[in-house]
């Protein structure tokens, strides 16, 4: 094999794409040819630099949301409703049923808190489901906090609680209550805790309140003009302990 033959084959060798015979040929050539061997080393270093560098663009959280909801909406709008009278009757009946159901539910308190709780559960589940817990992975609060600068119109308090047994995993942007919010991710053993933070809409002080939804524990409160929602599948006692630590540090 001449050097000219080798120039292209080096790339197949580098990428592990050559068959055994060609592979051996390139290997032997590289052992004896200083020029090709240097080219190969440079390409290898370059490949490593691209792979390990921060050249990978991850999909932003708001895009995930946008796509997910457009798929669900598109799905609804493209659903074909068969044009049979009795089916229309069924549709009408179900509309009436929904109206009655809504009437029954509204007084019993499908209030702001419950709606937010539902959104928080969905965000939490989604963050685990798509394997996208954090946009910035770091246990260093001085890395995570500045990451939010320019992405949010407020600065969320970030505290690493590793020494207290709740290591900070990272942070990401999320979308709740029609606004971009900070999501801080903490861990307790194998349990992920999402802590959502955004500025309170009114200047009201909400006391710490615990809820349970679909097997998740949620705690929310407000402090110094910020609304906090913590959620995890962790047991209630430990989540309360986490909340006390966050409250003490913010």
């Amino acid at each position, binding site marked *: 094999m001449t050097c000219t033959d080798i*120039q*292209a*084959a*080096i*790339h*197949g060798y580098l*990428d592990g*794409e050559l068959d055994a015979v060609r592979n051996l040929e390139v290997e032997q050539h590289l052992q004896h040819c200083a020029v090709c061997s240097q*080219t190969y*080393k*440079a*390409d290898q*270093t*370059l*490949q490593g*630099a*691209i*792979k390990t*560098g*921060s*050249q*990978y*663009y*991850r*999909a*932003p959280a708001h*895009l*995930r949301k*946008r*796509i*997910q909801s*457009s*798929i*669900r909406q*598109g*799905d609804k709008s493209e*659903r074909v409703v*068969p044009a049979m009278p009795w*089916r229309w009757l*069924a549709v009408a009946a179900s509309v009436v049923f929904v109206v009655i159901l809504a009437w029954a539910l509204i007084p019993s308190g499908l209030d702001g808190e419950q709606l937010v709780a539902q959104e928080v559960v969905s965000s939490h589940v989604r963050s685990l*489901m*798509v*394997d*996208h817990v954090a946009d910035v992975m770091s246990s260093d609060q001085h890395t995570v906090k500045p990451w939010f600068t320019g992405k949010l119109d407020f600065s969320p308090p970030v505290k690493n609680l590793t020494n207290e047994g709740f290591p900070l995993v990272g942070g990401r942007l999320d979308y709740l209550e029609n606004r971009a919010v900070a999501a801080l991710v903490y861990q307790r053993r194998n349990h992920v805790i999402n802590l959502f933070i955004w500025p309170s809409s009114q200047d009201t002080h909400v006391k710490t309140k615990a809820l349970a939804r679909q097997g998740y524990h949620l705690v929310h409160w407000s402090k110094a003009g910020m609304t906090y929602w913590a959620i995890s599948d962790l047991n209630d006692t430990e989540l309360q302990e986490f909340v006390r630590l966050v409250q003490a540090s913010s």
Partner: protein
Amino acid sequence: MWKERNVPEQTVARFEQVVLPHMDAAYNLARWLTRNDHDAEDLVQESYLRAFKFFGSFQGANARGWLLTIVRNTCYTWFRENRPQELTTSFDENIHSTEADPFDPEKLLLQSESGQLLKQAMEELPLEFREVLTLRELEGLSYKEIAVIAGIPPGTVMSRLARARSRLKQHLTKLVNKEC
């Protein structure tokens, strides 16, 4: 009626389970091809809607490759309509002959902002070079997979990668020398 209502819901759930997890790969490719956030986001969304529409015909096990093919085609259609000049960039082979290539990787890695320089050098590459490099180095795909996505013969993947890397080294050398 009950059944008809349930089927699309299951399809949505299956789509979310099979295709949605590859959004990073989709976005990364679109972002490297278009070189800006806004267009990449719009094109990824369009690709996903298209993927959902044709999800019924998807049978393979390689959801990522299938999605990336859709993303790639959606991007190229967009290029044809919005930036046709990028598709017709011809390059002078003489500029990137490997002999005249004094690339010193150590010099690059010593730079404090080597990642930034690398990004810049990659962004300056022609579209089809950015494409193969993204799929190979960032997505870690095999030549066979790249050939399917980019619609080229497998043999072409290796030579295109060779030219892309050689051109990238030249850009880097230029940038590094400027920084020094």
